[in-house]
Structure formats: C-alpha cells, structure tokens
C-alpha cells in the first residue's frame, strides 16, 4: 500500500517537527495508544536500521513501549517503506532493511561487489540446502562428481554453510547444513521458502544457465 497516500494531510508537518509521524496508520486506541504506536514505529525503524542482523519480533518487542504490538508495528513499517530506496524485508526469521533491487546498478558503481558463486559452489549449496545435514560423500554421490575442497572452503568462508555434527559411521564424516546467513544471502525467510522439489522438476526449462 502506498506510503503516505492514505492519511489525512499532516496537521503540523514541519519535517523536523514531531517525533511521532503524522502519517501513521489509524490504530485502534486512545490518543495515548496512537502516540505509543508512533513512538514504536520510530523505535522499530531505528532498531532495525542500526542492527547488523535481522531483528526478530521478540527482540523488537523488548524495545517497544508497553502495550505496542511488535507484529503490528512491523507490518505498518513495512507498508510505509514500500517503494522507498531502502525497504523493510522479512528474512532469516527477522526483519531487516535492504536497498531496493533497482538501485543496484548505481550502488555497484561505487560499492565493491563480490564475485558470483561458481556453478559447482551453487550446486553444492543447493544440495546442502535440500539434503541437510549431509556429508561430503553424500554431496558427491548426488553430483556424480568429486567435490573440490576449495568449493567447500569458499562456502564455509562466506558463512553460507556450517558443520552440523558428524555422522556416526566409520570415519565420522562431518555433516553440513546451511546457516542463517544463507537465508539472508538469498533473501529467504526460512528454508521453507525454497521451492519444493516437485516445483523444481515441474518448472519448464525457464532460464537455466547452462555450463
């Protein structure tokens, strides 16, 4: 929904003026409730903005004025940020600000961008995501090819995968799984956001980058 379109014209809208945004959604409750909600919005924006990790509703709730619902604040904030250069997204179990994708070309003119993951790394990552926890031998079995240590190392270095214990077989090989950072990297709320396997198969040769 549009950000400011739904409110009445701000009554006293000096930009520097009120800490309580005049354009907050109508919220059930007395004047006090509205003020608290407006303050909650401010707090949420500042908290999520400052944090280096997605902010969970629980974490936000701890910072909000009493009686203000974290979920409601997040929903209102998300609605308000739609179309802004920096948007509120739900990712990896929490909420975080992210630049709008259409601004990437301008940003990357100035900000250094890491290299794309090579195919082998992406495939390995996908296999780990869908089959976790899985051993290296398990990954090799599915790919039908040996897995270079460098590939595993690069995923580990990017923080996309992490050890998840060992398999109780001779040699006790390490089991691998994906991390919350993996979810953040690909903008997923949880692993359930990954397409189901049937969907993957059903999908017709959409735009598969071939080797």
């Amino acid at each position, binding site marked *: 929904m549009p950000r400011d379109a739904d409110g009445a014209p701000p009554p006293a809208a000096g930009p520097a003026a009120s800490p309580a945004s005049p354009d907050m959604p109508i919220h059930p409750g007395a004047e006090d409730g509205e003020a608290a909600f407006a303050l909650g919005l401010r707090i949420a924006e500042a*908290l999520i*903005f*400052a*944090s*280096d990790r997605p902010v969970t509703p629980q974490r936000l709730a701890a910072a909000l004025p009493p009686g203000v619902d974290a979920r409601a604040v997040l929903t209102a904030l998300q609605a308000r940020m739609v179309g802004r250069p920096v948007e509120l997204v739900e990712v990896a179990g929490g909420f*975080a*600000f*992210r*630049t*709008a*994708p259409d601004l*990437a070309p301008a*940003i*990357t003119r100035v*900000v250094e*961008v*890491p290299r*794309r*993951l090579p*195919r*082998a790394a*992406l*495939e390995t*990552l*996908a*296999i780990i*995501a*869908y089959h976790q926890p899985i051993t290296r031998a398990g990954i090799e079995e*599915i*790919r*039908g*090819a*040996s897995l270079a240590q460098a590939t595993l190392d690069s995923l580990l270095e990017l923080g996309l995968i992490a050890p998840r214990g060992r398999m109780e077989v001779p040699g006790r090989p390490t089991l691998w799984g994906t991390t919350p950072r993996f979810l*953040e*990297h*690909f*903008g997923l709320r949880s692993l359930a956001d*990954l*397409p189901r*396997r049937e969907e*993957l*198969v059903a*999908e017709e*040769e*959409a*735009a*598969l*980058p*071939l*080797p």
Partner: protein
Amino acid sequence: MRGESLHLSLAGFEGPLDLLLELARAQKVDIRRISILALVDQYVAALEGARRLRLEVAAEWLVMAAWLTWLKSRLLLPEQAEPEEEALQAAERLTEKLAELDAMRRAAAWLAARAQLGREIFARGQPEALQLIDRSGIVADLPALLRAYAAARRRALAARPYRPKPRRLWSVAEALQQLRRLIGTTPGWVVLQSFLPEGLADGLERRAALASGLVAALEEARSGALELRQDAPFGPLWLRRAASEPRAAESKESLPDAA
C-alpha cells in the same frame, strides 16, 4: 552447447552423471520418462567422439560406459519376453539419480536467479553497536581473592635473595674435641649419641653429627684412649674410657683450645 560440441569434448562436464543429465534433458521429456536406450547410445557416442580426438578419458567415464552397455544388453535380451528385473531396477535407479541431480541443478539456478545480498541488494554497511557495555561491576570471588593473597605472598617470598640454609655440620675435629673433653669426666659405658651437640633439629644434621662422632670415636679407640662396643647390628654404640690411656695427656692438653 548441445549437438556437435557435446560430442567433441567432455571437459565441460563434471563427471559422467553430468553428461548423462545433459543428454537426458536433450530428449525434452520428463526426466523420469527418458529413454535409457537412447541415452546409452548417445553417451557411448560422446565418449567415442572424445577418444577419436585422443582426448584424455578418465576411468570413471569408461566405467560408466561399460555399465551402461551392460544395462542396455540386459534391457534388450532377445530371447526373453521381459527384460530382466535387475536391469529394470538399475535403469530406474539411474533415472532417479538423474532426476535428483536435475532437481538440484534447478535449485541452484533458482538460487542464482535470486537477488543476492551484496550483489543486487545491500544491507546496512555500517551497523551500529546496539549494546552499551556496563563495566562498573567486577568479577572476583572469594577463592580468587584468597588465591591472589597466597600468590602475592609466595612471589614475595620467592623474590627474596636466595640464602642457603646455614647447615650446622659437626666436623670430625669438633667431635674429637668434644669426645676427649667429655669422656674424661664420664665413668662407665655411655651411648655415643649423648656426645652429640644439642639442638640439631634437622635429620641430616643429626646423621652427619653421628657419623663425625663415630669417626672420632674410632680414632680414639685406635689410639687406645677409649673402648667401643656394639651389642647388635644397628644397635647403639657404647663407649667408655680405656683403662690405660697412653694418649690421654695429649688429648687433655688440647682441651683448653676447644673451650
């Protein structure tokens, strides 16, 4: 990619399964309904193409070729109405594997197509510390306090300049003097220990004094000034003035010095 180039090189493929999947995809049907027989022929043809060009062909490619050829022969047994159960299962396993690899490859493509953090979308570059560190408290419990006290004392003591403990070692000469002085005044048998100096707390000092005393006593016995007796091994040593003391006068003379 497909067609010609596929027959020219195996280099672009990561293992036989990769090539097989590519061939299967070329059949443009659901992977689970691919023709294994067509697949086998295409695989072997691709391999032949590579060998004609004298490309290195790794063992795994050949093993797969041999296995596929066996599979084909089992599936096409002419004399039997039905293909072998075993071969059917093997073919099924192969299609399952290909389907799984296909799914994972599509998943990888799905991931690659997403806007990635740090490439297409960006997070806050300079997150702020949301923690205020309160360092007014201290960690120290009673055991730590007591350990600190002991450590401080120990270190202070160890830091003092090293002074070897002065040893009171009784020399043979001293023992001789003592013996000569006392034996004259003592009648009858006296145990050797009673001649040792007082206040030897330390075991080592006591044993050293006893040894010196014994040497002195033996010396005196040799010169005939006294007699020695021991009733049992490790028993106490008894001594007394000899009946005749040829050198008693001489020993008496040295007494004033000793005092």
